[in-house]
């Protein structure tokens, strides 16, 4: 595919100011100059362990937090929310799905209202139009329009994550930031949600920034992979290159630590154990 970056980051830096009266002011540099690009219709996986800065990055990409310095371009527009408030149309372009659908849905809001609220806030659609679009979206993510009348507690974890995805898609975004979207789900449900994400990408031409620590999921979904450690990108490249021949020591360590269900590996372990 021709190079059509929908998301470009150059040297993004993010500092958090912390400390207390006793320790004095302390600056934590959560992102130490991160650069990457995401092409339209593709999936960039951002891999790393807790504290590597991947969630900080997600907050910047979704325009929740500003970068301290560096350049961020979303769909051709320069974004620096500390300087200029992003317009509605720009905000609509990037939506996020969080890890835990039990926490990211309002327990007192009906599913239908959670979906139509997006349109109420962002479009001039009439109430009837909003309801129709919500019903259509519920069907699109594999639920039924009847689910609109239910509350989150009446749904299973996988169904809730489908609702969270549906909610993010209501305003027709171009980029979806997926922050560990399947790590709270059971294996069988995880497979369904991953399949759904794939279908939606093909159908709607979505670009995904997929944040995960689960390498097998990353391998399944990603086109390019970016490995982060302590606020820095230690390695990035096409999926097959990173998985086939990891260059950085940290990447190798991450791969080595990932449990494998490989039969040869089990055989080797049992041999060591009986020795």
């Amino acid at each position, binding site marked *: 595919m021709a190079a059509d970056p929908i998301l470009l980051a150059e040297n993004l830096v993010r500092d958090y100011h912390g400390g207390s009266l006793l320790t004095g002011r302390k600056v934590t540099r959560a992102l130490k100059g991160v650069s990457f690009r995401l092409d339209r219709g593709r999936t960039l996986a951002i891999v790393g362990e807790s504290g590597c800065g991947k969630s900080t990055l997600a907050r910047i990409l979704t325009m929740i937090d500003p970068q301290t310095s560096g350049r961020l371009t979303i769909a051709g527009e320069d974004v620096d929310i500390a300087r200029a408030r992003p317009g509605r149309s720009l905000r609509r372009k990037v939506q996020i799905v969080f890890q835990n659908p039990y926490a990211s849905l309002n327990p007192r809001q009906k599913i239908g209202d959670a979906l139509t609220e997006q349109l109420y806030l962002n479009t001039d659609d009439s109430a009837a139009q909003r309801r129709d679009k919500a019903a259509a979206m519920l069907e699109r993510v594999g639920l039924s329009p009847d689910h609109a009348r239910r509350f989150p507690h009446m749904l299973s974890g996988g169904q809730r994550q489908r609702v969270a995805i549906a909610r993010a898609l209501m305003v027709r975004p171009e980029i979806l930031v997926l922050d560990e979207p399947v790590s709270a789900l059971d294996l069988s449900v995880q497979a369904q949600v991953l399949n759904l994400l794939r279908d939606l990408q093909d159908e709607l031409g979505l670009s995904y920034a997929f944040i995960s620590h689960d390498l097998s999921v990353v391998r399944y979904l990603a086109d390019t992979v970016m490995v982060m450690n302590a606020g820095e990108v230690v390695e990035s490249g096409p999926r097959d290159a990173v998985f086939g021949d990891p260059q950085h020591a940290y990447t190798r360590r991450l791969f080595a630590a990932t*449990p494998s269900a490989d039969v040869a590996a089990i055989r080797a372990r049992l041999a060591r154990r009986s020795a």
Partner: protein
Amino acid sequence: MALLEIRNLRVAFPTAGGLMTAVDGIDLHVDQGEVLAIVGESGSGKSVSMLAVMGLLPPEARVEADVMRFDGQDLRVIPARARRRIIGKDVSMIFQDPISSLNPSFTVGFQLTEVLRHHLGLSRRAARDRAVELLTAVGIPDPAGRLTTYPHQMSGGQCQRVMIASAIACNPRLLIADEPTTALDVTIQKQILDLLSDLQIRTGMGLIMITHDMGVVAETADRVMVQYMGRKIEEADVLSLFSTPAQPYTRALLAALPENATGTRLPTVGAMAKQEAGHGR
């Protein structure tokens, strides 16, 4: 003789809609020095059956079994006082979320020595020395200094090490680990799994690993039990389970692992599993 032996365990909870059966006729045994993995998805009853062994279920839970024996003692009729002498000493358990399983209001040292003083009747000084020994054994740097810290001052991985230290404090003969690494990063998970395997080999205790992660099963277990909707679907040694799974549900579970993906779509478990459960009834 099996260390822990359970036959036809049934656990049900009264709900507004009638009795909800969580565990429906499970047979299980673990020998000394053996690692048994119980694998299943949420709602499969894998934790509930172990909580029943520990006597940690809420009082309204109905627990029935034909046999439930630990080391020859009948756990069904054992008085509470006698059970408390076993639980935490000969059988101990670690849980998924290490940060919330430690008491935030007490220091690590206090929580560790409490176990030792209660079960082994150690003096304050002896308990403290043993606590330092335990923290060393689970790989915590500066163990003596750590005794005075609170759980919130440590990382998740370190809290789980403290949990393990307290679980092995009285040299248990059986350790039940309920999703011990689910809340942890992969590199920390690897360390904790290695630590548990090491301890298991060194002490020869029995180990039950409850997990939903097939990778964790592959890396730790001798024998595997697959559970679904409160029933045992399949039981086999680890190698046969992964190389030649007998049941459709197990096959579906293995096929749903993204690392085993062959095409562009992952096969899903749903339909297959429901069929499976229908057969059992």
